[in-house]
């Protein structure tokens, strides 16, 4: 699938809903890092504690789980637009956010924005933009499924209103109808390759052919629905097949995501290029227990038999 051994990033994928098989296949397909935006879980939460544990798992267990497969896991933290409509709960979630947004590997506030474009969604979207500005983090925007074009434009205007610069905003789930407005305004335009709704691989190829590779980002948004955690590698492969240059593919499937979210100061290439020294501190470096395992996690290594397991049961 990845004959050029390209390093790939999936900057939008809900691994909480995926299995270890997915992690293994993703690593084998060349994905070195992923970003998991905080979103809803398929049904609305009714207690603030559910949010707390969810956010905790994004910075804790899920990150650790990914590391066991040689994949660097980052996340964005935020209150999603759907659940912003439960205002009493949303207010409590807003109080939780300061506990999480400055944690290591949190590369943005997200995914936030509009769903039904209600006043409640607007209120909490704005509050979170202010938080993003306060802590200097990029914003990852979920654009609505319905009334998409207008919602996308409103999202960008509200960002500007709150003093967020376009280069700090990744506008997600674009399509042929929204991409021009997003790029023209200087925002990052991300595309979700999702089997039934959103984009298909072929259409993505056409978008890159038409708009080039500047500020365009590909992701899978794989989650609990019918979705594909290998969307990024598959799209990369199809692009190469259709004659898009390897340099352009590298940009839309790797470098642009890194540049956009790297603005958080929490994500850099050295995280996966330097040998897997994952918290060697605990491994007593005054002693020979520091052993092997220092192979860079690049190329075709198999997650399980090279990386030293750090799971205790």
């Amino acid at each position, binding site marked *: 699938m990845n004959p050029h051994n390209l390093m790939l990033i999936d900057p939008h994928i809900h691994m909480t809903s995926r299995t270890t098989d997915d992690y293994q296949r993703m690593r084998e397909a060349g994905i070195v890092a992923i970003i998991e935006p905080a979103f809803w879980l398929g049904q609305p939460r009714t207690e603030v504690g559910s949010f*707390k544990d969810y956010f905790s798992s994004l910075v*804790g267990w899920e*990150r*650790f789980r990914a590391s066991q497969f040689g994949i660097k896991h980052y996340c964005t933290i935020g209150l999603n637009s759907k659940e912003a409509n439960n205002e009493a709960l949303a207010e409590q979630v807003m109080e939780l956010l*300061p506990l999480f947004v*400055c944690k290591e590997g949190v590369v943005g506030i997200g995914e936030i924005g509009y769903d039904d474009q209600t006043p409640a969604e607007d209120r909490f979207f704005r509050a979170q933009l202010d938080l993003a500005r306060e802590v200097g983090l990029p914003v990852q925007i979920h654009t609505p499924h319905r009334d998409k074009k207008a919602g996308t434009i409103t999202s960008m205007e509200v960002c500007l209103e709150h003093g967020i610069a376009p280069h700090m905003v990744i506008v997600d789930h674009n399509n042929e109808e929204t991409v021009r407005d997003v790029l023209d305004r200087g925002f990052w335009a991300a595309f979700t390759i999702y089997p039934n709704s959103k984009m298909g691989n072929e259409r993505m190829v056409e978008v890159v052919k038409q708009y080039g590779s500047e500020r365009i980002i590909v992701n899978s948004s794989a989650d609990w629905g019918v979705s594909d955690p290998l969307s990024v590698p598959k799209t990369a492969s199809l692009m190469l097949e259709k004659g898009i240059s390897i340099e352009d593919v590298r940009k839309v499937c790797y470098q642009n995501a890194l540049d956009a979210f790297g603005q958080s100061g*929490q994500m850099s290439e050295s995280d996966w290029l330097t040998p897997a020294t994952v*918290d060697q*501190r605990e491994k007593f470096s005054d*002693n020979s227990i520091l052993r092997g395992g220092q192979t860079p996690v690049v190329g075709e290594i198999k997650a399980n038999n090279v990386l030293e397991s750090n799971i205790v049961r």
Partner: protein
Amino acid sequence: MYQADINQAHSFLRDLISRVISTQGLEWLDQKVTLLSGEAAQAKDLYLSFSAAPRFVGKAKLELTEQDLQKAESIRAGFNPSNWTAAQAARTILILSVQHQNPEVYLQTIEKLFNTADMGELVALYAALPLIPHPEQFKKRAAEGVRTNMGDVFEAVALNNPYPADHMEEDAWNQMVLKTLFVGKPIYRIYGIEKRVNPKLARMLSDYAHERWAAGRTVSPELWRSVGPYLDDALLQDIKKLFAQPNELEREAAALACTQSTFAPAQELLNEYATLKERVSRGEITWDLIGNRLLQMN
């Protein structure tokens, strides 16, 4: 209320941090300490600074001299931050800086950090247990740390940490020792391992050895360290078996276990292995040496 002088711990850790980070990082830390120890401090101030610490002070490993290690020991028996990072030390300073006069409020504050912690934060929090005020309130938390699936977090609570030996309940301690073996980590890094031996643990360890043998697996020679003091007729059978192993470290462990015992038949058994007995008495065989060699072989 205190298990260590907080001011001393603070200035010691600050000194260690200052050697590996920039002055800006240190200024950031000092500002946060002032903010958190002040009367106007808000919960949010602690949350943001505690989680953001690596962004400002980095994660360089602390560099301790022999003198520093002695100083650590004098501040708190068993305290050994030689594997700590700057961020970890800074986080420790931050939680030592918040108001702690009211034990319940302090417990709630620290528990909130635990309950929302990422892996680096968990490591910092568990490793800080031997320094924090009101240590008796954190026994259940320490036991919870032993239940983790994350290797680094487990090491933070179990290894090179004097809190468990000083405060943990016996059942939790026993689980911790057994789990350390179970996950293949070094027993000799458990501070106070000798101090907390107990007959129940000796029995659990022997049972575990039997399980391993039944499955045709190896048994760590370090296992017998907490068995030796409780040798009786039944446990002595294990030691006899150990003496018959081809692995030299296991035979050494058998000799040490007998030496730890006041049970007369154990002494008689040891007399049958004059060379080993002689080497033990010369100090050439110790549990720490065995642990060290095992680690190097892995």
